[in-house]
């Protein structure tokens, strides 16, 4: 075991994947000698050469178009989009091409080797365009997998799984935690399952669901709730597409209450999908309305970021209200 922050864990996963398979190729804006603006690809070009780790021109639709073709050819591209806020020029390539490649060709061709890594989320004074959580745009797209790790250990295991997965994966990295999250990470190769949620804490009174950076915030809220004697069950979804409804259903059948939290705006957010599924499958077991604690329906703010974000106090309030309903 080594102590790593999330960037080191991601870098370590890429290193392992590139060492193991020469078809693994990392590229994106500033990804080459500089190692990416966050340094996730540090030293990979030195180690594996310019042909396998390189800078691209500044053109997201080109990066993903190129990546789609490379994956169709049989390579295993790991493309970086520098900020999730800038993924939209590539939206067509991801939604119309990546996601539909296998289906539209009747499995003659696929881009299953593709992994798209991109940092997402707020809390870093990034304003409108360095803070967004665009996961719900992509969870609405059959053919993609969407994965979000919460800590360094999860990041390494899930990224290795994503790279080796037979389907294309959008890997959203919580950039607020890149250096802030530090933990024990095995130096050797390991994978964590895609499509499986993890119960990070068991409890009987209420279920609290989240993913990525929000898990840390949920953790703080749950501490406050436990001080008041509320036993919370906490679930990290880890994969949003496909998502592990069974684990959440089983938990809510036990607790009868559910709070879901994400940073993205409320309307059309992924919490809505979870709420709809749970009311459908747990209707007679629910003791209170399912609560969503999310960002506001505004663009991501700057100076009032703290007010906008679904912090531990807002989640704690939602837990309290649900239990006292």
């Amino acid at each position: 075991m080594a102590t790593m922050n999330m960037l080191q864990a991601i870098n370590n996963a890429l290193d392992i994947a590139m060492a193991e398979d020469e078809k693994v190729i990392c590229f994106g804006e500033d990804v080459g000698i500089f190692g990416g603006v966050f340094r996730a690809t540090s030293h990979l070009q030195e180690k594996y050469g310019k042909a396998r780790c390189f800078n691209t021109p500044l053109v997201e639709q080109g990066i993903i178009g190129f990546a789609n073709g490379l994956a169709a050819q049989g390579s295993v591209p790991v493309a970086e989009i520098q900020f999730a806020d800038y993924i939209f020029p590539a939206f067509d390539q991801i939604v119309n091409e990546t996601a539909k490649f296998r289906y539209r060709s009747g499995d003659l061709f696929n881009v299953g080797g593709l992994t798209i890594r991109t940092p997402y989320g707020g809390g870093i004074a990034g304003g409108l365009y360095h803070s967004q959580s665009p996961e719900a745009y992509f969870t609405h797209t059959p053919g993609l997998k969407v994965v979000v790790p919460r800590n360094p250990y999860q990041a390494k295991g899930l990224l290795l799984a994503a790279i080796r997965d037979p389907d294309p994966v959008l890997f959203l990295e919580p950039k607020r935690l890149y250096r802030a999250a530090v933990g024990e990470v095995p130096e050797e190769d390991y994978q964590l399952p895609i499509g499986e949620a993890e119960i990070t804490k068991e409890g009987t009174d209420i279920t609290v669901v989240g993913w990525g950076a929000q898990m840390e915030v949920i953790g703080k809220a749950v501490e406050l709730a436990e001080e008041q004697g509320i036993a919370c069950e906490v679930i990290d979804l880890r994969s949003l597409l496909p998502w592990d409804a069974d684990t959440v259903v089983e938990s809510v059948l036990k607790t009868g209450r559910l709070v879901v939290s994400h940073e993205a705006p409320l309307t059309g957010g992924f919490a809505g999908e979870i709420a709809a599924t749970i009311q459908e499958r747990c209707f007679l077991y629910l003791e209170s309305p399912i609560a969503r604690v999310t960002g506001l329906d505004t663009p991501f703010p700057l100076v009032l970021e703290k007010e906008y974000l679904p912090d531990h106090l807002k989640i704690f309030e939602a837990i309290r209200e649900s239990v006292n309903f």
Partner: protein
Amino acid sequence: MMTEYVHQPDFMTGDEFSIPTFSLLCPEGELHDGAIEPALERDHARRIYQAMLATRILDERMMAAQRQGRLSFYMQCTGEEAAVVGATAALDDADMIMAQYREQGALMYRGFSIDEFMNQLFGNELDYGKGRQMPIHYGSRKLHYMTISSPLATQIPQATGYAYGQKLAGDGHCTLTFFGEGAASEGDFHAALNMASVHQVPVIFFCRNNGYAISTPAVEQFAADGIAPRAFGYHMHVIRVDGNDVLAVYEATRQARKIAVERNQPVLIEAMSYRLAAHSSSDDPSGYRSKDEEEVWRAKDPVLRLKKWLLKKQWWSEEEESTQQEALRREVLDTLKRAEKRASPPLESLISDVYADITPALQRQFDQLKRHIRRYPDAYPRGAKSLDLDVGTDTDSQGEA
């Protein structure tokens, strides 16, 4: 970057350069003065012509079938057979082709059978694409022809990426991507050329400048002298070629392939041609262009031009022509009749291939759909056909927790 400093402002527009059009064969089927005949063997030349002829006949027949209501949609390659088949003939048969949608001639040249065309057009159970895409969205793994995707220009940066993989694999192959002059307005075109040039990729960008993007004429698509000058902005090899002259297209593409494969450098080819038919079966060109204009181009028919050259060389005869035409027409009609009677793809094909494996959530939706179809089989005749209707609607697990 090397620059010379000047001390008076001097604006440039690109008019300082003019890009000529490479042409070998005149409409009468004779070589232009000073033109050198490409090294094309008799059998190869015949293979090219037969593919062009077969494409023309397939298009005529299928357009007629569409008008009879037997087919939902169709797109013709008519007028552009030389550009498409000539380019394909200059490649190695294992080079990847990533086409736009009007390039059935490439598949015809590589040996896609009439039966394979028909199965896709009718979306039947033998369609490789499992009946998921509109007619003309062909694909063939064995013929190295990427399945067509409707969104325009998306295949262009993919070709750059595919070719980058070929370069790393070192297998000596390249990728050729076809697109229209209209699609070249998309951002994906610019992204693709720039990345190919920066990363030194063995890819050929083949623009079919056929004068129209549906109804929009080329003069309303761009202000510059066509697509070719854009190559300068990316420091890329470029050639403009008479797209109705199959010998010129063949020779230009053959040399482009050498640059791509031997030097790992991309090439842009702009083939000047004309879309003689409508954009698609849903389009009527009489609303935006004149018959006179069409006649000018009909006189430059690329199939006829190659035929005249072959006849002069005595590599083809009028007897062969009529026998071949008749045989092709019969084969298309017979095959069509078989294909339209084949069963639809099974209901399961609705949910396969979304992912490598079917997800639990999708399986749940599918089970629900099957229960519904069993209840109302008459409303869903295709789906009901592949279901065991005797299974009671309430014997299926409801899948609830």
